[in-house]
Every structure is written in C-alpha cells, then in structure tokens.
C-alpha cells in the first residue's frame, strides 16, 4: 500500500515560505503604516500563519484550517460578514466522542486545541498532523528570526 507514513519526507519548502512571508510583509508595510502597533503585530502574525499554511499546501488538515480561519477573519472584517457559518464547519467532520466537554480534557485534547484543524482526529492522525505542523512552525520561526535579524541590522 502506498503508505506515506513510513516515508515522512515533508520538509518545509523554505524558499516558498520566505517568499510568501516577505511578500506579505511588504504588503503590510504598504498598507498599514498608519495602523496601530497592536493591529500590525496581529496582522503580521496572521500573515506568518497564512504563509506557513500556503507553503504547506492543501494536503494537510492544519494548513486548510489555518487558511480557512484567516480568510474567514479577513472576509468578516472587510464585509461585515456574519459569523453564522464558521468556515471551520465546512471542513470539520463532526466526529465527537461522547461529551467531550464534560470529561477531563486529556492531553490529546489539549493538543487538538493547539494544532489547527485537528479537532476531530484520532490520535494517530493527530500525531501526524502535529509533526507536520511542528516542522512548519519551526521553519516559520527561523524565517522570522532571520528577517528580524537582517532588518534590525
């Protein structure tokens, strides 16, 4: 069987990540120079996650969830779009264990909250998404550190 799990070669594509993020930064610089500091930082943070998700591609659940969230947030802000249908609902299989809120949140639940798009996953899938997510998070952090370092020089 085509078991990609045994061949986990999904290293983040650093040039793509850099490209997306830097482009976003340039865009933000042009547009939001007058915005408040908090807004800018929030926007930059969203830009970081969006570029991360874009570089990861649509094959991962977390990248889709991230993009979905960013898009939803942006669109709702722009157009006063009502939040009646969170975009996540489109992408989430409502597979819940019995009374997830009543029982003590296990560590897996905490992880599910942390990793985007991993709310309705079994443990093995969750671990796989976490591994992928960690890889891209680390690449994103390194990239941002590089940018900050070169910008502040």
């Amino acid at each position, binding site marked *: *069987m085509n*078991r990609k*799990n*045994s061949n986990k070669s999904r290293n983040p594509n650093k*040039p*793509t990540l*850099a*490209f997306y993020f*830097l*482009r*976003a*930064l*340039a*865009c*933000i*610089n*042009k*547009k939001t120079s007058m*915005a408040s*500091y908090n807004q800018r*930082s*929030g926007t930059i*943070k*969203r*830009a*970081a996650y969006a570029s991360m998700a*874009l570089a990861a*591609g*649509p094959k991962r659940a977390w990248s889709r969830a*991230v993009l*979905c969230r*960013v*898009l939803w*947030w942006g*669109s*709702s*802000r*722009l157009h*006063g*779009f009502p939040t009646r*249908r*969170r975009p*996540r609902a489109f992408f989430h299989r409502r597979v819940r264990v019995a009374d997830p809120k009543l029982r003590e949140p296990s*560590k897996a639940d905490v992880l599910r*909250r*942390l990793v985007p798009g991993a709310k309705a996953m079994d443990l*093995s899938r969750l*671990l796989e998404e976490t*591994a992928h997510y*960690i*890889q891209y*998070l*680390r690449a*994103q*952090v390194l990239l*941002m550190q590089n*940018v*900050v370092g*070169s*910008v502040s020089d």
Partner: protein
Amino acid sequence: MEMNANDKFGMEKRSGVHLNHHISGVSADCQFGTPSMGAVPANPAIAMSQGVSMISSSSPSVPGVDFFGPGLWSHPANPQNLGFSNAQTNTGASSSIPIGKPVAVSSRGMFLQAIPGVLPPNLSHFPADSAFIERAARFSCFNGGNFSGMMNPFGPSESLTPHPTASRGVTGTQGHKSELNMTEVPRDITVPIDHGSSSGSPLKNQRDKGSYLVGGLSNVSREANFTEVDQEKSTELANAAGNSSSSDLGSKKRKRSNQDMELDQVQRGTQLSMENTKDNAETEQNLEQNSSRPNGKQAKDSTEGSKEDYIHVRARRGQATNSHSLAERVRREKISERMKYLQDLVPGCSKVTGKAVMLDEIINYVQSLQRQVEFLSMKLATVNPRVDCNIEGLLSKDLFQFRGGSSSMIGFSPNMIHPQLHPSQQGLVQPGISGMGSPSDAVRRAMNAQLTVMSGFKEPTPQIPNVWDDELHNVMQLSYSTNPPLNTKELNGKPRDGFPI
C-alpha cells in the same frame, strides 16, 4: 506467477527468487551450486519426470521450483501440483499466506527418503543432505497444520480462493493430519508463493500454535541452517533449534516496501552455509526497514512483491487472534511509530519514554513555537515602519540565496505550487468561497487592482484560474489589510480555542 511458484517452497524461496530474477532457464540454478549438491543429480529421474510436467504447465520462469515440488513429494500429487501450479498463475500475486515447507508431513519418512534423490539438478544450490531434507520436512510440518490459521486473517484477495476448503480443513494439529496435509500442502503451497512476505507467516502461524509445532517436528532435526526466504523465519527457526524460540514471533505486516530488501536478503541467503550470519544480518535489515514494526518482533518479509493494498497482520504468539485486538494492535503500533517520529522532531525528547510525558513535551513545544511566532511578529511590527524598502530587498536577497534568481523566483514560485495545490484544493476551497458569497468576487477584483499597483513583484496575472491562487490573493488582501473599520461583533465569533490566530 513466478513469484507464486517460487514462494511455494520455503527452501525454494530463495532459489525461486533467484529464478525470478535470473530467469535463464534451468541452468540458472546451477549458478548457486554448492559443493554438496553433487549428490543431487543422482536420482533425478523421478523429479525430472514430474518436474518437467510441472514446469511445462507453469510459467517458464520458475522451472526449478516446480521441479522441486513434485519431485519432493513424489506422490500422486501431480494432478494437485498441476492444479495448483495453474492456480499459481491464476492467483497471481495475491497470496499473502506465507509458505512453509511444501513437504507434506504425513509421508515424512517417504519424503525424507525420496528427497535426496528427487532434488532436481537445477536446484544444485540446495545441498542434498539429510539436514536439508529435514528442514524441508520441518517446514512442511509448520505449514501443514496451520493452514486455517494462516489463511483466516487474510482477505478474499488471498490466493487461497482456489482451495479454500482445503486450507480450512487443515487445522493446527500434528502428524495425524499428515494425510490431509499431504493433499493440502501442495495447494497451500501455491498460495503463498507469490508473497515473499508470507514466507514466514506459515512458520509463524505454526509458532502461534505452539505445541502443535513442537509435536509436528518431533522427529525432524532442527537445524538452524536453512535458506529461507523469510529472514525472520530463518532466524526464528534458528532460534527454534531448541524448539522453543517461537516466542519471538511477532505480528507480521506485509509491506511492499520491504519486499525488495527482503528479496535481496533472500538471494543472499541462498547459501546454506552462510545462513546463520545471514540470518542476523537479514534480521537487522528487516528491523531497519520495518520502521513501523516493533523492534522486538520479526518483521514480515515479503520476498516477492505482495500486491495487496492493505496490511496484513498476524496474531502474535500467545495473543488473541480476535480481529478487534489485531486492529487495536495495528493502531497502537501506528501511534507508537508516530510518537517516535515526533520524538525526533521535538528537541530534548530522546530520553523521554511513555506517551503521557511525550505528549506533554509536544504540547509545550508547540505552545512555545506559537508564542515565539507571536513575539517575533510583534518585533517585526515595531521594526517594520522603518524598513518598508528593505522588505523587497530582503525578498530578493532571500530568493537569491535560495534559488539564485529573485525575479524569476517571485513569479515562479506561486506557479510552482499551483499545479499540486489546485486539484486537491479545489473541492475544499470552493465551499469556503461559496460561504463568502459574492463579496469575495468584489474583494478579488479590488485585490487584483491593488496587486498590480504593488511594485517590485512580478505577481501572477490576476486572472489565474487556479483556485488556490485565488485564495492566496484573498488571504493577502483580507488578512493584511487593516484599513476597513474593525467590527467587534464579528471578532467575537472567533473560535475559542488555543489557536493563536
């Protein structure tokens, strides 16, 4: 089919593999000749007569195997052999059942006597000594009694379909079923032929039955030296030389990825004399290859390409063979494999053992990474106003650094991603887009207009039909723009989880 014929016989497997890969006719076998094979051609008449018929009926690529089979039995199993040789061709590469020694148990004495004489000359690489014969008999014992156990875990794609009743009829018992085994063996042998991985499983099934195996092999000398396609089997047999090593048997998962490696191992292991050393090496290779398998367990080998689409799991010795527990074991092994991978990712977790502590570490690491992103974004927000010109320079510099062509990269990279993103994303994005309705079109148009104004970038043309690209633009515009007035009411709808965005 060639595979089937080759895997038919446990000992033959390696030769069969060789035959598969060195299909040069009967003479190919002579290449692996061992010095002890001199005695083989002593009485080739029987084997030849039977083998020739077999060979002619079966695919020409496995002449040696067929030779060995009918000759070995020297029984009126020829029709059966012919039948299952045909079945081999029919079953193709579907059998996942490991093949034990095709030697029937019942006529052990007869076989043992007949074997030295019936070894065909083309199997010169098999030493025609009694040890070999005994081993063959032993494998047949392994195979004979546990066909039902062997075949049950496998799905209908198994090549057992030609002889389901025969296999089911064989229960895990010892020699008194020899007659049954006699007839069963030839059929059952054919089944696992095409599965290199299955080579070890009948053996293992035998192990699972424990006492059954012991009783069946009581009069077979246990020699560790035997060439088995299944490295695990050989290793285990070596262990079982003391008739007690079956505890090492583990669940076998057949994976095609391992088949090539095992194939090589099989080929290397043809030499009986080098068996012991080979077993260790091959076992190590098996363990290395089968990352998903527990290290302590013998990995399922797959000498020939087993073409199933799913993983077959065998019950370990002493464990329940319930389908639920098997599935549970598969799930647990998957989880442990992923945890090991995460252990490599998360720094400082090499010494941590246990799922709970590992999960804690992972959670901490993910949280720390997210906090770092937030902190760095705040830092970038402070330094950004001073460096709007620098960003473009950074971009080109980074791209130069990575690719050596900034302008080409800028326009190129989004396009590179599109082909792979497009098909899978389309289904997903469209619901998301439809949720936003028509405003997204307006946004996209405004965004495209704004994009063209952006300097220093060779943006893709706004009319890129790629949905993912549209989403990319959407993200750029909707997320990065803070000009529109904030609507706190909408912001309250943000999900209330730990997600940082």
